[in-house]
């Protein structure tokens, strides 16, 4: 499962009160439990079921994902800048695994 690698784009230099856009993408098959493999066997459900974003330790955004979310979940949201700090992003897999990434943001 080491092929699952999240990617996040956070603007590096920002100003106070600016609303910035944060783009996230994680490579994941998102097996809905309805698709079949070439042998006709149903592929069991395995999806990313939750995504969350924290800024300086405080949760700012969370999303529950269902099987209707596409392969390689792409999530974009906005954040109003108050101070410099660090974002922590976390994705939860049905199989119990967690994938995470952190990004710094500096107020100039």
């Amino acid at each position, binding site marked *: 499962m080491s092929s699952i690698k999240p990617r996040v784009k956070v603007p590096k230099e920002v100003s106070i009160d600016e*609303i910035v856009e944060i783009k996230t993408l994680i490579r994941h098959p998102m097996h*809905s439990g*309805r*698709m*079949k493999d070439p042998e006709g066997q149903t592929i069991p459900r395995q999806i990313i079921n939750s995504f969350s974003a924290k*800024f300086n330790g*405080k*949760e*700012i*955004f*969370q*999303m*529950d*994902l*269902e*099987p*209707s*979310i*596409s*392969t390689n*979940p*792409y*999530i*974009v*949201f*906005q*954040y*109003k800048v*108050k101070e410099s700090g660090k974002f922590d992003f976390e994705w939860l897999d049905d199989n119990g695994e967690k994938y995470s990434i952190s990004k710094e943001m500096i107020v100039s």
Partner: protein
Amino acid sequence: MKLRKLKKISRRNALQLIAVFTGTAVFPSISFAQSNKALDRINEITNGLGATESDIWLDLPEIAENGNQVKVSFEMDSPMTETDHIKTVYILADGNPSPNVAKFSFTPEMGSCSATTRMRLSKTQNVYLLAANNNEQFFMTYAKVKVTIGGCGG
């Protein structure tokens, strides 16, 4: 059929008639819900109170060539303060095997209520957006998406 008849009358009349037809065709489908999984789910979430139809920007393609990757964006007007902010947004699809697509939890720190993701649509259907603010008021909107190739497998 209708359109062929309309050609004989003036352009202005025709436009008025079209407005009347689409008006009557669209609204009953919301108010007198037939068996619609998404609307049932809205009833469940709102405890039967229902939601006010409101002016939410919900961006979906009119025609999705590939139901596997349908981009959905939304934005709502909200001051996003501690006392008045949108707390939860649900995306629901009435023609998918399960109506639930996603649930977003917003906080005032975000400064705006807007997000984008990509979803699967198994066939042509309505996609609903239901939003709840911190005072337990519900708002909704919907959009119809025509799907050329379904995207749920099976």
